[in-house]
């Protein structure tokens, strides 16, 4: 009679296996993180590019608006509108101009003139 065959197992070094598993997981995670971060960098680069394009587009729109403002407020445009009757302007007649410093006739040199001494009251 054969004695019941004893089950034989290869002995596994649990500590070593755990070390390998941790190392593998660590390497795998490092790799994945590397890939993830690299992709993130590409993605952010694309985002940066998109934002730059958007900024350039906004600047362009701003410049186009400035050009339109300059064109609409230019002298020739205003004159055209004046001719078309869009703007109503009446030239100011000479008699309607009030001058703050009205011209005075020159006084003869020997005329006695009143003077005020600004520092007299001190």
């Amino acid at each position: 009679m054969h004695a019941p065959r004893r089950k034989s197992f290869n002995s596994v070094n649990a500590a070593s296996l755990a070390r390998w598993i941790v190392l593998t997981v660590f390497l795998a995670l490092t790799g994945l993180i590397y890939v993830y971060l690299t992709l993130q960098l590409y993605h952010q680069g694309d985002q940066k590019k998109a934002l730059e394009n958007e900024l350039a587009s906004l600047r362009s729109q701003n410049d186009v608006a400035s050009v339109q403002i300059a064109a609409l407020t230019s002298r020739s445009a205003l004159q055209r509108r004046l001719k078309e009757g869009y703007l109503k302007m009446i030239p100011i007649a000479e008699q309607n101009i009030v001058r703050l410093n009205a011209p005075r006739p020159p006084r003869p040199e020997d005329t006695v003139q009143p003077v005020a001494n600004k520092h007299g009251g001190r």
Partner: protein
Amino acid sequence: MKWNSRIRCALVCLGFTALFSLFSFRLVYLQMIKHDEYAGLAAEKHVDKKKIFAERGSILDANNEVLAHNKPVATVVADATLVTNREATMAILRDALDLPADELAEKLESGRRYVVLKREVPIATATALDQKLTAAKLRGIFFDRDTTRIYPNNSMLCHVIGFTDFEHRGIQGVEASMEEYLHGQDGYRFIEHNRAGQEIVLYRGQEREPRDGYQVHLTIDLNLQNIVENELDAAVREYHPQKATVILMRPQTGEILAMANRPNYDLNLRSEAKPEQMKNRAVIDMMEPGSTFKIVTAASALNEHKVRPDTTIFCENGVWNFGGRPLHDHKAYADLSVQDILIKSSNIGAAKLALSVGDQKFYEYIRRFGFGERTGIELPGEISGVIRPPQSWSKISITRIPMGHEVGVTPLQMIMAMAAIANGGKLMTPRVVKSITTEDGKTITTFSPTVLRQVISPETAAQVSKALRGVVSDRGTAAAAAVPGFTICGKTGTAQKVDPKGGYEHGKYVVSFSGYLPADNPAFVGLVVLDDAKTANPELNYGGLVAGPIFARIAEKAARYLDLQPQEDIGKTSAGRMASTNASHR
């Protein structure tokens, strides 16, 4: 001999060693010896030095009104190698860009990687086109950002501003002369791109920011320019001259306040303009000035103390034979004071004044007034005019040059001479550029007034000035140039046109008026020149009758704009002006 396993094994190992050694050598050869070459080739394929274009600076007037600036546009380009669905692409492009089908087909079938389809496409059109192409999933069409130069005032001040070519380089006017300030400095960035030609932002290399062009501020006041242009247009409608020029300037500083020429052109439609329209006649056209030149004659004689303002000169009763040729006055004058020679514009009197000064000295004064040399204004193409030295004068030149014949001067030189009388004898350098600033207003350069030389003494300038007051009076040749409320100094000029074939053209005249106001402390000097004006009565084609009133209208409006104080009773001068319109003029 039998091969045992050890030998076989050794041979296989040797083989592998040799093979891997070969690979290793090849690797070292490629990676180390040929590294630079292949790295260069790879860089050529994937790395680009992308230019970042600097924006051209704006041009502004003295009140910061925009005269020239940039409008963003797009250049539509195709990479013909990437265009797959040609029919669909062509259909969209044809509608959006309004291009002929055959031209479009030729470009797309060229097989080239960079084909410009259309330049200066509005940004809105380009954006819409891009969206359509993206929606239809069509490749191979790209949009390069660009700018185009825009001039909001169209033809106003066209000869001073000038324009640029399609590479944004100044061609004429201030655009050309201030190129170094306006152009700015382009930047760059080293980029890598993928197979589809898109930039890989991650691998951006060295970068330099562009520096935008500076803003150029002119001395021109657009309000005064507008007054001048309107009056010049009215004059052209009335007299149909072949050419016309008006300049306003500040005599104390040499600042040009306004400058206009006819014919002119629209700066935004410059490709349609003819060369004749593009000439800035104020600086590149030469004319015989006629009697306005008598200010130089009188100033030289007075400054040399050969005469005094009240010295009497016999004017030969209208005809004087000198050097075997008769010299005429337009009226018979007997004795005239030096002042009256200017007031009446006597040719014989002026000739005798020049004779008293002498050939060499008179020539020196002409040169001292700036004739025969470039003024140095910041406008390209300026000519120096023609002033012959006394050695090449004929026997009668000393009698003809004093009245503005046998000399070629530019309108700018003429107004500078008048400005020298107005400012006490100083010849200034004319300027159209006031300052250079950055876009945010930081000053880079300011152009200060420059006195070129003291031409005559202030006393002589005052004496000439006093005489010139009489010109714009009932006694003078330019009563029609009077401005109500102001005392004006001025001088008329009527010169027969020089025939390019020789001699003078019959019945054709260059009429001019140059003057300043207020007489005591001039705020501006003006010059009006009309070449071959057509008057209803040819006998009335005189500087005092044609150019004088144009100056008066400009000066009146300019005085109002500058808020100059009238010195005289306005009603009185207006009446005087009306009454004197029919007086004699020359």
